[in-house]
């Protein structure tokens, strides 16, 4: 038998549940308990496209080092789903632990000799305690949290406190939950070898950080960003963006005098109508957004072209999932870059923003509204399921109260009255961004006919080649202006000068930061650059120029950011090496460092200094 794994504040625990069984809130309670112990956790839901009865897992990494990416492997399995038992038991690392419901006796062959098996008769305990079927189900989950509290040596009082906070005002629920928690804890204490080799020890590694999912943060960002109109169509994994926006609007945007809404949210009949409404609202001077996923992006293509060409601000939160087609609706990917960057027919290019975590979903999500109005164009905020639908530890949200919304270049009633020349598509300032009027500004001046058809600088219909070319060149200038307005990339320099660079973006950063450490331990030094916006800022292009080999780490199959780099930066494709992870699970540090190390070996590149590489 392998030696039982011994680890303090550094392990992976996985819960195998049945979806619809109420396990989500129990698992969340467990994650928060570890956080309250001052120890970082990174949980992830692995769930099917289904409402009830299918297997679902909650995988949680406890990491004293603070790594928030997925680690891979499993040290402790809480196997609550008979359906997936064999697979779940097989997945545990040698020397790991297995917590299970021992109410029904299982044949010896169903277990592994190299695991520490910790059985407790959860069903029996619940049946004895409760008569109501739903209660039996829900409290079974709380009971195993109680048992884990004892097994992992978590402070019982912290869990109690969390329950108390969660159900404040509903005292009956507090008592019932704590009772179930205590039952589990007592059983473990008296029947199981507490604590086991895996332990949570009190630490101080959380600091100011908060624990929230990216979709909620994006919804909050839209509130802070001044969005008043949201039009959407339900689609996994983006639905909770608008749900959060709705909840935060109720809280923060209800008029205190009369209870009326300072916002309008419409669930449209489809994605086409959603983006149509957003564009109509943007045209009429309200900040508007939609939230969708890949299939929605496909459906909205024609409208993106209209908004690009008619120059109408819009914000699109695209929470990416596995494609193509229905693809893997509940699995994560970064595979919509190309369909967003060049969305619609004709010569179009769009502004993209890549947040790495909930903090940036809020921060950059709010900023997207300023950017959209400044540039008068759609702005895509590309989340993915990994950061969108999983709670993540991140910096606390912050807001500068002196910040005023940037409404962009608007012709005012006064300017029109004073007779200032107004050409809707005229480049007055040389930055490609024209002035616009909001409908209803002036009784007789400033009105124009917005259209997707070609027109001259004064918005008059024109199919003249020169007018078309003027317009397209101005749009190019505008896109160039955008390069300095999108969020700048973030460089993490290696400890030594190096010719190796790594480019990554979005949710990959958690795994990438850890991968840099793993590589460094092998003597491989690589500068890493996290791209946060498209069009690419100069710093991104410089980074590629300054390194001999640049790995581009992505969570898609066709290397979409790499394609954008080659296309926009005119780089030699051979210089940009693909590191691609696209099986639907979040990328891991082990995967990234493994691929990079292997590629360097294969290319016989001495992973050392710049001089050595040349």
């Amino acid at each position: 038998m392998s030696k039982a794994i011994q680890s303090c504040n550094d392990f992976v625990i996985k819960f195998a549940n049945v979806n619809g069984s109420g396990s989500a809130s129990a698992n969340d309670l467990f994650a928060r308990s570890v956080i309250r112990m001052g120890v970082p956790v990174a949980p992830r839901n692995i769930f099917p496209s289904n409402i009830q009865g299918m297997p679902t897992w909650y995988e949680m990494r406890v990491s004293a080092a603070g790594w928030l990416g997925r680690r891979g492997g499993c040290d402790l399995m809480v196997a609550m789903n008979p359906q997936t038992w064999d697979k779940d038991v097989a997945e545990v690392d040698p020397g790991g632990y297995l917590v299970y419901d021992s109410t029904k006796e299982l044949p010896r062959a169903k277990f592994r000799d190299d695991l520490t098996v910790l059985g407790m008769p959860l069903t029996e305990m619940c049946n004895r305690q409760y008569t109501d079927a739903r209660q039996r189900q829900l409290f079974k989950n709380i009971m195993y949290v109680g048992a884990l509290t004892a097994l992992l040596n978590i402070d019982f009082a912290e869990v109690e406190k969390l329950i108390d906070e969660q159900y404040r005002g509903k005292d009956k629920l507090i008592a019932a939950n704590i009772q179930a928690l205590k039952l589990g804890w007592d059983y473990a204490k008296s029947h199981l070898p507490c604590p086991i080799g895996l332990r949570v020890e009190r630490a101080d590694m959380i600091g100011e950080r908060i624990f929230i999912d990216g979709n909620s943060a994006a919804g909050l960002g839209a509130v802070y960003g001044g969005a008043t109109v949201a039009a959407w169509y339900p689609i996994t994994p983006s639905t909770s963006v608008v749900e959060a926006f709705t909840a935060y609007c109720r809280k923060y945007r209800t008029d205190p005098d009369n209870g009326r809404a300072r916002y309008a949210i419409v669930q449209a009949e489809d994605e086409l109508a959603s983006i149509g409404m957003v564009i109509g609202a943007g045209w009429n001077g309200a900040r508007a957004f939609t939230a969708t996923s890949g299939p929605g992006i496909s459906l909205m293509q024609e409208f993106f072209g209209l908004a690009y060409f008619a120059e109408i601000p819009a914000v699109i939160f695209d929470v990416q999932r596995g494609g193509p087609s229905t693809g893997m609706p509940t699995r994560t990917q970064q595979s919509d870059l190309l369909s967003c960057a060049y969305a619609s027919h004709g010569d179009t290019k769009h502004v993209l923003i890549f947040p790495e975590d909930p903090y940036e979903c809020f921060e950059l999500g709010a900023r997207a509204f300023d950017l959209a109005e400044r540039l008068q164009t759609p702005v895509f905020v590309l989340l993915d399921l990994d950061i969108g639908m999983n709670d993540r530890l991140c910096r606390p949200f912050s807001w500068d109260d002196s910040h005023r919304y940037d409404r962009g270049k608007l012709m005012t009633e006064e300017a029109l009255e004073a007779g200032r020349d107004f050409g809707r598509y005229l480049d007055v300032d040389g930055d490609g961004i024209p002035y616009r009027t909001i409908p209803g500004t002036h009784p007789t001046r400033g009105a124009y006919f917005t259209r997707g058809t070609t027109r001259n600088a004064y918005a008059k219909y024109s199919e003249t080649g020169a007018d078309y070319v003027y317009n397209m060149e101005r749009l190019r200038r505008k896109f160039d202006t955008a390069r300095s307005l999108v969020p700048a990339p973030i460089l993490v320099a290696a400890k030594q000068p190096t010719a190796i660079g790594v480019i990554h973006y979005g949710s990959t950063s958690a795994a990438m930061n850890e991968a840099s450490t793993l590589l460094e331990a092998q003597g491989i030094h690589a500068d890493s650059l996290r791209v946060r916006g498209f069009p690419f800022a100069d710093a991104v292009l410089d980074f590629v120029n300054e390194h001999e080999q640049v790995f581009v780490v992505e969570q898609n199959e066709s290397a979409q950011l790499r394609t954008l780099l080659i296309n926009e930066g005119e780089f030699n494709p051979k210089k940009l090496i693909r590191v691609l992870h696209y099986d639907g699970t979040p990328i891991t540090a082990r995967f990234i460092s493994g691929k990079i190390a292997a590629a360097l070996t294969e290319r016989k590149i001495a992973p050392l200094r710049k001089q050595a590489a040349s």
Partner: protein
Amino acid sequence: MTYLAKPKLIRPDTPKNALGYTRRDYEGAISTLCAGCGHDSISAAIVQAAFDLDIEPHRVAKLSGIGCSSKTPDYFLGNSHGFNSVHGRMPSVLTGAALANRDLIYLGVSGDGDSASIGIGQFAHVMRRGVNMTYIVENNGVYGLTKGQFSATTDKGSKNKRGVVNTDNPIDLVGLALQLGASYVARSFSGDKEQLIPLIKGALCHRGPAFIDVISPCVTFNNHSGSTKSYDYVREHNEAVNRVEVILPRAPITAAYEPGSLRRVVQHDGSVLHLRKLAEDYDPTDRIGAMNHLHERHSLGEIVTGLLYVDSSAEDLHRHLNTVEKPLNKLGDAYLCPGSQALAALNDSLR
């Protein structure tokens, strides 16, 4: 189609409305449609209606999709903002615009291809959602810009220019609008401005989705014998249920009618619709009755026109959403941004 711009000079005796605007102030660019196109008559009717109602031009937003009809907003209300969007999607763009600013008057102009084919989904949903708008379909039963294909409102048995008979069943947008909850439903004919202008005026004053199906013959592709949307055919089969007159709240009522022949409907904005009965026992406040009447007459080959249904107490989308009175696009930072203090409290709840 005319290539000659009208003179800019305005004679001193040119009639002006209460705001001091002349009819010319409500006109737009010169039409590029075919000479005799029914759509141009509808544009003229819209100009007259806006002039008569003393509407400030910049208080109107005119939106359209794609097609001959959707080009027309360029040809009327030149001082109003317009948006020629994408094919079949005017309703969603207009909905968003209406959400952004509840104070403007929204006029959606569409065609039978734009609304009954590619855009039938959005047509349906804008009606059932109760968007406060006037939705005019310039219905010629044919695709003009692509040269004469049948549309979804072409009657079964109607012939195209080459003699091919349409075998598909037609979509009746009026029937759909009634069923989907439009609160002002009318049908008219581009060749009957006496009927059309008041219907447009009533729609512009109405709160809620007001739908007008205007049969508007296509002189180039659908005005031949055998077509059920030609000038001659529509004139012969037009059966109006009533005649409407719109009385603004400030206007004194001068006309006298025989008792019993007139029905008064007071709309939300105070305007009064005077409905002079033409058809026996037709009740324009009875939705089910209107639908039955339509079906009965259609089976007899008649084209029922007039104000077919009106509900002057209908609620609109903004009421359903309980939005504030002030237009959302005019709410300043202080009304929208909860600020750093609220954020600090929220952060605390996430630890």
